[in-house]
């Protein structure tokens, strides 16, 4: 009996290890990243990567099971805090985790699907050039999702949120030799920035108005002023709609199917697409305070469900067809949230994730699974050429977005460039003028215009002299060799940075530090 009690105690105590849950896949990602940087390749390198990733996922599963068992015996601990992360003008951001029914159940499903998918990918991606990159991405997603789900406050959740976004972008662009894939990866990434802006808005307002970013405070949203509550909710709702590809953000997800089958399954079928719904569930008390926001949610969810259903009717490829089915069902969940049926949305999220993940993984054998023709639509719908065209063109949403966002941005870019050429270059001595000056037979290779330009020119002369004396005429050219070696190292770093994924990682790292 006493051993049983001991076990129960140990299980109950396991909740304090909750921080390990997102950390394990993150460590796996770091290890795989390091191996990737070390240049591992070939058949022999695959088992180690798989073992690391699957080991982490299994560890997460075991740990979560222990916590759940512990929680079954006693009550859920609610909040587990692990010290301060930062302290900004008296507002503390602790590293805290929420351990409740919602977070544990979703985390278990995420971990289970992650574990199964990692296993699936081990054989499926054998000998792919991006094998290790794929596992890196999937581990990052797992870490991000678990962090997001288990986070005790909005800031920690946002870190997880971003990790998901980055890994999603990595894997849409998995086939980086195909321009369509990389272009769509970028499209998804940019659309998700809008959601991130919403999330950041929510965090900022929480700091400002509530003095805390803990979910317990934020989600409770104990703000008497409805306007403030509405604005706060708006931030999180925007984030949720973007991540879960609800209207008007749906187009990005339809273009996200460029990755390998298992990543389509785990991101757009099973796991990440539900992150937005999870956020809504987390914010339940806050949402309940603003009925008009709830109504808007219900409307967005219903509209998405119908939109995706209509689009799904015309899809002729299995992945897009399943994707629209997913989006329409997620739309139903969002609608349920809007109607206040949060418990229903919660249960449905869990079951839908499992089923859809399974269905996506089996997408290649759709021909064998459902060989008969689908039931025909009612004639009033099937015969409507305009509605058919609208569904086929996905109601033109992405092209409207293109017109509203991309084109103005490009024009802006061109203007900035003009400004750069016409004003800034003149100010600092434009290299562009070099061709002209050379034509006119000037001796100097570079001519400085303006004060700053002349100053730069002087400096460059000085450096030139230094270089000539020290490097080129130096005894044995030791400095030259040293510089050469340094140059090689810098080149290597630059080459890494030139690849967008590393650049983005750096940017994100900076981002996290700033927060």
């Amino acid at each position, binding site marked *: 009996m006493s051993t049983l009690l001991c076990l129960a105690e140990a299980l109950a105590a396991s909740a304090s290890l909750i921080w390990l849950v997102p950390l394990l896949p993150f460590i796996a990602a770091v290890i795989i990243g390091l191996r990737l940087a070390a240049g591992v390749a070939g058949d022999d390198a695959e088992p180690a990567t798989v073992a690391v990733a699957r080991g982490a996922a299994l560890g997460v599963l075991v740990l979560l099971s222990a916590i759940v068992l512990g929680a079954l015996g006693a009550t859920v601990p609610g909040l587990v805090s692990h010290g301060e992360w930062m302290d900004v003008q008296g507002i503390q951001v602790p590293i805290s985790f929420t351990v409740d029914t919602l977070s544990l159940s979703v985390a278990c499903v995420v971990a*289970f699907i992650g574990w*199964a998918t990692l296993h*699936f*990918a081990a*054989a499926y*991606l*054998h*000998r*792919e050039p991006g094998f290790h990159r794929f596992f890196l991405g999937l581990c990052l997603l797992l870490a991000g999702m678990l962090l997001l789900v288990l986070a005790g406050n909005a800031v920690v959740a946002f870190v997880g949120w971003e990790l998901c976004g980055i890994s999603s972008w990595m894997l849409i662009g998995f*086939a980086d030799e195909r321009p369509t894939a990389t272009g769509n990866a970028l499209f998804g990434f940019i659309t998700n920035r809008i959601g991130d802006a919403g999330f950041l808005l929510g965090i900022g307002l929480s700091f400002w108005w509530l003095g805390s970013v803990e979910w317990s405070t934020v989600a409770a949203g104990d703000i008497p002023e409805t306007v403030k509550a509405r604005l706060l909710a708006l931030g999180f709702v925007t984030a949720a709609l973007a991540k879960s590809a609800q209207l008007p953000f749906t187009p990005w997800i339809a273009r996200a*199917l*460029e*990755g*390998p*089958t*298992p990543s389509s399954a785990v991101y757009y079928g099973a796991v990440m697409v539900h992150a937005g719904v999870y956020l809504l569930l987390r914010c339940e008390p806050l949402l309940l305070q603003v009925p008009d926001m709830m109504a808007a949610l219900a409307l967005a969810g219903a509209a998405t469900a*119908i939109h995706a*259903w209509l689009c799904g*009717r*015309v899809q*002729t*490829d*299995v*992945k897009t*067809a399943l994707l629209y*089915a997913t989006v329409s069902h997620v739309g139903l969940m969002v609608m349920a949230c809007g109607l206040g049926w949060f418990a229903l949305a919660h249960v449905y999220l869990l*079951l*839908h994730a*499992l*089923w*859809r*993940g*399974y*269905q996506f*993984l*089996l*997408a*290649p*054998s*759709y*021909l064998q*699974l*459902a*060989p008969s023709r*689908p039931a*025909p639509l009612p004639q009033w*719908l099937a015969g*409507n*050429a*305009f509605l*058919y*065209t609208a569904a*086929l*063109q996905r109601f*033109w949403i992405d*092209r409207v977005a293109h017109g509203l966002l991309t084109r103005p941005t490009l024009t802006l870019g061109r203007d900035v*460039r003009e400004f750069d050429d016409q004003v800034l270059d003149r100010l600092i001595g434009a290299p562009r003028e070099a*061709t*002209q000056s050379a*034509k006119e037979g000037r001796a100097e290779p570079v001519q400085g215009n303006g004060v700053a330009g002349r100053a730069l020119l002087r400096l460059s002369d000085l450096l030139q002299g230094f270089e000539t004396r020290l490097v080129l005429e130096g005894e044995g050219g030791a400095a030259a060799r040293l510089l050469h070696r340094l140059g090689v190292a810098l080149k290597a770093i630059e080459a890494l940075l030139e690849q967008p994924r590393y650049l983005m990682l750096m940017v994100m790292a900076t981002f996290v530090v700033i927060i």
Partner: protein
Amino acid sequence: MHPADDNSSSLHERVAAWVRHLEHVLPAQAPIRNFVHHNTLHGLQHLTFPAALAEAARISGARPWLDEVQSRALHAAGRIDDSDLNAALDELRLDGGAGLAGLDECLPGFPALRRRDVLRALLTHDTCPPGPAKQQWLQDEGRLDTALWAACACLEEIPATAAGAVDGALASLLEAIYPQTPQVAAWQQEARMLWSALVARVGSEWTLSSLLLRLTGENVFDTVRPLLIRHLSSHLDLGMAAWHNPARGQGFYAAWRQSAGVDLGWELDELVAARDEIAALPTDPVETIGRELMHLGPSEAHWGDYLERLALELPGWSGMFLWRDQHPQYAGSDVPVAMADYLAVRLVLERLHCEDLVRRTWALPLFLSELGDHFLAHPAELWVRHAFFAGLLEEAPASEAQRLIAAEQAADAEWQRLANAAARTPVVSKNARWSCYLLAQALALSPAALQAAGREGADALLAETRRLDSHQRGYVWLLAYERHYRQQIFAALAANHGRSRENQAPAAQLVFCMDDREEGTRRHLEEINPAVETFGAAGFFGVPMYWRGMDDTMPTALCPVVVTPANEVCEHADDAAGLALHQRRRALRLAWKERLHRATRDSLLAGPLMTLLGAPLAAGAMALQTLAPAWLGERLERWRSAFDQSPATHAAVSVPADGAAKEPAGTSPRAGFSDSEQIERVAGFLRSIGLTERFAPLIVIVGHGSNSANNPHLAAYDCGACSGRHGGPNARVFAVMANRPEIRAGVAAHGIVIPDATWFLGAEHNTGDESITWYDTAVLPPTHQAAFASLCKDFDEATQRHAIERCRRFASAPHNPSADDARRHLVGRRHDWSQARPELGHATVAVAFIGRRSMSRGAFFDRRSFLISYDPLADAAGHVLEATLLAAGPVGAGIALEYYFSTVDNERFGCGTKIMHNLAGLMGVMEGASSDLRTGLPRQMIEIHEAMRLLVVIEQTREVVTAIYARQPPLRELIGNGWIIVAVKEPESGAIHRFDPAAGWLPWRPDDGAASSAVPGVPVAANSAAWLGAHREPLPPALLEVPA
């Protein structure tokens, strides 16, 4: 007749002719559930092999030869040696290879250097000059052999273009544009020539969008592709979508017009007038084709080429459209599919978007003449734009050019200034010196020797570097690669001649499919029980039929794709009550499965409910799949059959009593085979495989098929002779026929007396997990039970050993597995959802033997040979051989060539990696959600394939084969054009001759030149297992010391 009518009718004819021509250039792959191997370049089969490959490279930009780096690796690994290369060079010379005369002469200035050695060094070493940056680096870093480098100095004076090492297309363009180093004054002249040169390529080589791409960097096709694919895929869809264009029944052009006419996307893309234009289009697609071509502006002589270019921008979808055009009513579809519809839509889209691009860029209407006038006035702009997008500008001018191109309005003066500045950049090339230097290094020439040879010698060396073009190089490598393996095969055949004796009282005879995957099974079976005899034949066993299994809703043709069966055979349950129960149960199970998979996708209301039901099952399935795929797979199969309760069945082979009088009506098949048909089939088949006497008590006909989970290319692993289906029913039907006393009596009248003590049995071998299904064992006479039990034991043992043999080629299989481990591994592969390589298919095929089994029995051929049984002694006139060649030749060639092309350029000829594949319209796979339909084989299927043509060795005299060759045009095409290599082994003497289309029969000699009966160099091993050892790489043939 009105002249206009005349005109339009001739246009109709011309369009029809162009569409017919497209058959030669577009992939001809059927929808994926009917995947059957065929020659990827089937449309070019009328050309000789090298010519067809060069043509394919020209029209598709693919590389039809193995990558030279890989060839060099094969050379380094000893899979190709110098004697092979020498022989290949000789063969190329015989083929009329230009400039290959005098291979054994010495190079001027080098008394010890034969041209052959130079050419070989050029093949086995990379002598392409490095890029300018690397050249500089090599020189600066002191990585050069300075003495040798200095000795090459005399070549510095050669003009840059003479080095000829630049990429072919670019070089010719460069030469056209820059006769010499560009000069300031010259660019204006060049610009004027440039425009006419560019325009001349529109139609013959380019579409208008390709031209615009080269001037604006914007690819119109990138915009058109997703729009077009949505419509195309919806029109061709075979049952994925529930909602299709309401006007689908009127054809693609009409349907597209209706949908595009209400598409708001035109306005969003700022193509404001497009909708009106679409409304004003002629209703006749052919008329539209004529109008649009006129507008787009290629010269009328090139209209057909222009359409070909357009179709080739999306070869997979175009090919599928054409295939459906040629196969109306495929799978019961009543959707009209006409290629002209597709071309008309494609042209309209091309024109609308090109028009938009030209308007946005130059504010001009879309007319080549207007553009020409513009560039006549602004030559600098043309020159800069072209040079920039062709990558000819250096960094500084390139960034300036980019700025000008991006700017909304750039003054002519700016273009001119840039052109002046950029054109002056001198192009200095040391390529000639580099080529010479690298070649000298490869030949290990001393600086002194090079110096001594002087300028003349260096020029001679350089001349050799230009001797072979890229196609000839690829061909030489292929010839050498094929020869190396061929020598080993011939040596093994010669050494094996006369080794195996005929067994006068065989214990059992098994007839397998000719499939290379059965070679291993047969070898092991014969090793285990020397009293067993095996045969091979095309896997429909001479019984072309429609088969309707007990659970099938539609009959399936089980025969080669080129044959249309006249008879239909149904599988009937023995007991009606059992059948009713089975059908109820099965319908229930399928309905729920369908409901789960469909409703969760199709329905907003039932979907959530079904999801709630399905989720626990899905979670369980995922967990078990992850932990124990084989266990789950086998358990599911067992549960399924336990639930379905399949009753015992029989195949209704004969014409039903009441239907005897019914004659075949039109194309609809007749139920069952009449007795005379059955006699004909059985006797004909037995004669064709040479089984006319010495019948064993038990004769098993073994069809084959393969099962795998989660695999869109499922059909590619099945029996090619049964249209990519399982061949078990054919085996079963044949056995039933041959067991009928009436039939045996009739067969005896043909001179084939089957003793009463002989019993035929049908079976199906699963090449995936090595399992076997025996048919109709319930009616096996008691007298044969013992023999059957013993055969089952042998067969089981053989598949165990074969499983071990197969595991060596799987990277994830255990090393040196036990028989149990090996079998378990194969079962796991078959059931594993995540397994992209459930089995390796025909990946190892290289050779086909047509002759008695004694030819190859007792030798190890590494699962690389088709084995087709044929008795040469009973076929002096060659009629049996003729039929066999006509049936098996194209099938074998199709398989080998599809593997060849998918291997050499998997991106263009194959379908890339499986992991991105997305099943589209139930007819093919795309990458992602809006790519071309991918045809050919996925990368996972060809990884271990050795790309060479099929070598067919026929056991027959040269005279008989020559006569057949002379009277059969299809064989003349296949053999005479070099799509397969044919050799004969004389039945009596065992002498081997290879057929060369140009030179005739060439006697084979082993590599050391000694023409003797004792063939050296063929290894001998105790048995297969001993020869396999722990090797995982392809193994050469060997003789096995088994009692034969």
